C-alpha cells in the first residue's frame, strides 16, 4: 500500500536552515546536509528545501549545499525558491535534486510549468501554492513584496495541473507556524479538484494534526517545519502514532 509521506521542510537562507513564524523573524537552525542526514535517519520520507530569500530578491540558488545534501542522503528531496528557468532547474537536477518546486515564477509565466514538465517529466515538477482565505499569493518569502493574485485558487490549481505539474504543495499562510492544525477545508477543496498528489503545508504542531489531516482529507503527504525542528514532534513517534490509527506509513522492516 502506498504510504502517507512525512516531509520535513527546511527553509534555507544564505545556505543555512532557518525558521520563522509566518515567513518572518528567522532563527538559525543549522547546516542543510547535517539536518538532512538527521531527518533521513529519523525516518523522514522526503525533504523539501525552500530557499526563502531567492524569489523576492531575484537571486540564483547557491547549488553547493544542494550537492552536499545529495551526497549525504538517499531519500528524495526537492528544491524550491528562485527557479525561474529550465536552465536553473537543470542545474538543480544535475547537482542531485529529485524535484524542483516553482511558485512565484510560475504565476508570472505559467508556460514555465509546461517547459519544465516537457524537459524533466511531470514527476519532477512540483508547484507551490500559497493560500490565505480564498486568495492566492505570490512572493511570500519577502513580506514587503507579498502580493495577492487576481487568480482564484481553484482556477490556478486546475491550470498548473493541466500544464503538467506532477504534485502540489498547498501552503496555508494563515496557519504557518501557528501549530493549530492543517487547513482541512482548503485542502479538501483542492484535493477534490485534481488527481495529482497533494502535499499539505502549514499548521502542524501535534501528532493529532497529522492524524486529522490523513483521516479527513485525501492528501498524499504532510509537510511541517517548526514542529520537527523544535523537536516538539519526533518522526519515529509520529509514525508509530499514525500506524496505531491504521494510517499507512513507512516504518522500515
Amino acid at each position, binding site marked *: *500500500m*502506498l*504510504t*502517507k*509521506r512525512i516531509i520535513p521542510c527546511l527553509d534555507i537562507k544564505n545556505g543555512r536552515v532557518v525558521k520563522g513564524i509566518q515567513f518572518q523573524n528567522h532563527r538559525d537552525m543549522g547546516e542543510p546536509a547535517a539536518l538532512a542526514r538527521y531527518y*533521513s535517519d529519523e525516518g523522514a*520520507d*522526503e525533504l523539501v528545501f525552500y530557499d526563502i530569500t531567492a524569489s523576492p530578491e531575484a537571486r540564483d540558488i547557491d547549488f553547493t549545499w544542494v*550537492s552536499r545534501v*545529495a*551526497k549525504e542522503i*538517499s*531519500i*528524495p528531496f526537492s528544491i524550491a525558491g528562485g527557479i525561474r528557468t529550465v536552465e536553473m532547474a537543470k542545474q538543480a*537536477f*544535475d*547537482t*542531485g535534486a*529529485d524535484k524542483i518546486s516553482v511558485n512565484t515564477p510560475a504565476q508570472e509565466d505559467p508556460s514555465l510549468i509546461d517547459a519544465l514538465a*516537457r*524537459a*524533466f*517529466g*511531470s*514527476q*519532477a515538477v512540483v508547484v507551490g501554492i500559497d493560500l490565505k482565505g480564498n486568495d492566492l499569493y505570490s512572493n511570500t518569502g519577502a513580506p514587503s513584496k507579498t502580493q495577492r493574485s487576481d487568480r482564484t485558487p481553484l482556477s490556478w490549481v486546475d491550470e498548473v495541473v493541466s500544464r503538467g505539474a*506532477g*504534485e502540489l504543495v498547498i501552503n496555508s499562510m494563515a496557519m504557518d507556524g501557528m501549530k493549530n492544525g492543517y487547513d482541512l477545508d482548503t485542502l479538501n477543496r483542492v484535493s477534490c479538484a485534481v*488527481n*495529482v*498528489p497533494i502535499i499539505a503545508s502549514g499548521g502542524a504542531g501535534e501528532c493529532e494534526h497529522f492524524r486529522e489531516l490523513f483521516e479527513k482529507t*485525501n492528501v*498524499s*503527504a504532510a509537510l511541517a517545519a517548526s514542529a520537527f525542528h523544535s523537536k516538539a514532534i519526533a518522526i519515529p513517534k509520529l509514525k508509530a502514532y499514525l500506524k496505531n490509527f491504521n494510517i499507512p506509513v*513507512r516504518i*522500515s*522492516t
Partner: protein
Amino acid sequence: MIGVIDYGAGNTRSVTNALTNLGNAFVLSRDIETLDSCDKILFPGVGAAGAAMASLEQNNLDNWIRNCTKPFLGICLGFQLLFENSCENDTECLGIIPGSVVKFRPTKITPHMGWNFVEAAGAFEMHNDYFYFAHDYFVDVNEHSCATCIYDDESFSAVVRKDNFWAAQFHPEKSGKAGQDFLSLFLGHE
C-alpha cells in the same frame, strides 16, 4: 567498474552518489567502447519514453543494450524501456523483455509517488520493504516479475529479471537502506 549509461534522460547524480556510498567505482558514459570495458551496467532514466528512446538511438545505444551480456540493471524509465513498447508517446522500446508499458487509470492519484511496499515473488532473494516510486506508467505482473507492488487495487511489476537483465520500477538510489541493499544484491550478482 560500473558503467552508468548517460544518455541525457534524467538524474544520474543520485545513482552515482549511491554507487560512491556503496564503495563502487563507476564511469558515467554514452560511449560504446567505454561501456564495453565495464563489468556491470546501470541504466537510469527519468522523463518521457519517446525522448529517451530517441536519445538512445542517436547514440547507437539501443542495439548495444539489446546485445549486452553483462549484468544490467534498468531503473524507473530504464525499467520501462526494456519492454516492447510504451503507451507514453506511443513509443517502440528495446523489446528485451516481453510486455507493454501502460498508464495508470485516470481515477487514481497520479503519479504513483512515494514509498510503497514491495514483495518478492518466488525465490527472488530481495528483502520485502518499502521503496520509493515516482511514475505514471507501469507494467503488469508477468512471467519475468520477481517482485510486485500494489497501488490501490492494481498489482504491477516492481522488479523484473530476464537472463542478465534486471530492472526496478522504483528508485533504489532514493530508497534509503532498502535501496542500498537492493543495489548491493544486484552488484554482488555475477
